[in-house]
């Protein structure tokens, strides 16, 4: 157990080193969520009455800011696994596989690095949100929000690492990511209140872990509880999601990397 922690940290360390050396990517990845929050936040500002109808008193942009924080986390983490494919193509994977470290540790190290990177990106988006006038009733809430973003991204990066381990080509990987990323974001209350969704969509949204994360972050950020889902349920769903993804990823990753590439 001790050695799996050490090995996970080794891979984590390597991934972060690589991230640090590719600084230009940090800004590029911020452009999309920044556009969401600035452009979409303002385009939809007239929808305020809709939001008020479910008990939310602020501006639309304040309603959707938590959604964009989670958007950043979703896309940073779901793209994050792509270097698994490079590692397999360019031999780092074989180097790791012929060393005594465990296969799960490779997957877990990648996941934890991706989740930290996603959290960093999300914190930059929080900065942008603050800069354009979104306010926090309680600034200390930023700490639990970051905790949730890290946890959530850990689970989501599992999806990415699993897909990358299974996909044999870049094309398959990107296809799968596109298939999953946007629908998971759209089928959540990130942009619109859960109460306003038609019933059948609301049912689907309630199966989506993104939903619980958005609700939780929104509640911590604005103080407004929405959708009638208690905080504890949301936290429990997020934990269950993360644990499931850790288990699935370790299993699938170990199985896949043992096959020849």
């Amino acid at each position: 157990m001790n050695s799996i922690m050490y090995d996970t940290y080794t891979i984590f360390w390597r991934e972060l080193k690589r991230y640090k050396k590719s600084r230009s990517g940090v800004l590029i990845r911020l452009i999309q969520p920044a556009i969401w929050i600035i452009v979409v936040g303002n385009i939809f500002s007239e929808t305020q009455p809709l939001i008020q109808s479910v008990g939310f008193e602020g501006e639309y942009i304040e309603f959707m800011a938590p959604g964009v924080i989670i958007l950043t986390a979703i896309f940073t983490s779901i793209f994050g696994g792509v270097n698994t494919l490079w590692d397999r193509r360019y031999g780092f994977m074989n180097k790791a596989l012929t060393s005594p470290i465990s296969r799960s540790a490779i997957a877990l190290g990648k996941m934890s690095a991706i989740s930290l990177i996603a959290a960093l990106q999300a914190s930059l988006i929080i900065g942008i949100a603050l800069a354009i006038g979104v306010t926090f009733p309680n600034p200390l809430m930023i700490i639990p929000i970051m905790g949730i973003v890290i946890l959530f991204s850990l689970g989501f990066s599992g999806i990415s690492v699993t897909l990358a381990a299974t996909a044999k080509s870049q094309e398959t990987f990107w296809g799968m990511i596109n298939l999953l990323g946007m629908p998971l974001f759209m089928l959540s209350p990130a942009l619109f209140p859960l109460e306003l969704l038609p019933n059948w969509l609301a049912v689907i949204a309630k199966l989506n872990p993104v939903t619980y994360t958005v609700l939780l972050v929104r509640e911590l950020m604005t103080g407004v509880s929405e959708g009638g889902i208690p905080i504890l349920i949301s936290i429990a769903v997020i934990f269950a999601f993360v644990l499931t993804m850790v288990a699935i990823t370790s299993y699938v990753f170990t199985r896949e990397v043992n096959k020849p590439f």
Partner: protein
Amino acid sequence: MYAIETKSLTKSFGDLVAVNDVSFSVEKGEIFGFLGPNGAGKSTTMMIFTTLLKPTSGKALIAGFDVMKDAKHVRENIGFVQQETTVDEYLTGRENLLLQAKLNHIPKNEINQRIDEVLELIELSDKQHQAVVTYSGGMRKRLDIAGGLLHHPKVLFLDEPTVGLDIQTRRKIWQYIKKIHIEFDMTIFLTTHYMEEADNLCDRIGIIDGGKIQVIDSPQNMKNALGNEIISLVVNNNNNHDLFLAELKKIEFIKKINEEDLKLILFTSNGTEVIPKIFQISSDLGIKITTISLTQPTLDDVFISYTGHEIRDDKSKFNRKIEHAKMKRLRA
């Protein structure tokens, strides 16, 4: 106990047999080379030894541990330097070695000293804090090799260590490999398709072709077995060719004859005495010799004598099948 021992090792992909019933052993401290053309089964064998592939049947023991049942112990005792350079370009040389040290569980208090030691050995100490992206191909390869021996493995695997490097760099890498061998007293198992490399580095060579080992011996013995001279001759088109061959085979010094159409390659000793005899036979049969030459055998000739084709001859049917199988796996 041998450093490497295999018994009837076989690996097939579908109905393609990449490694076919291979049995051999490598002594501790030996530099052993696997020589063969692309697609001969060299890399597949190495992937089995390094626990990246499971054999279909048969057995392989590395440093006494079974690659199937005891993969973890095998991994603790091997270093593997892959054909393509696998160093992280955006990390510095030292960071790359640090990563390798951590992957191989080198105790924390020894890591720095080990890294200094190998950096000195491969003469990269002064460049250690530069990003690898600034290194030349040869420097990257040296760094890769250094990473493979950081944890003092019992067996070091080098897959085509000098492929794609220029001839001076290649010689330099050979020097490092010899240095490593002396300094750490490691068993080194390498694959190559360069004759010169095998001749230069290896104590013993296994020639592998079509997934089977054709012969194992020291480079010197292999060359000696062919006699110490080679006569190549080209004759004109004639009706007595078979008879001519039969007569040549009767000459006592001729050990082996390879023929490609009208070109004959005779492996022989005492070539200077053999040549007049050849002329005698040919004039008796009315055959004209257009060219004739007498040379010393090289490992190239050894290879041809065992496999019947040249090492650069990649176009055999067997290779196409391998490539096809690879493509199929990639598409899945």
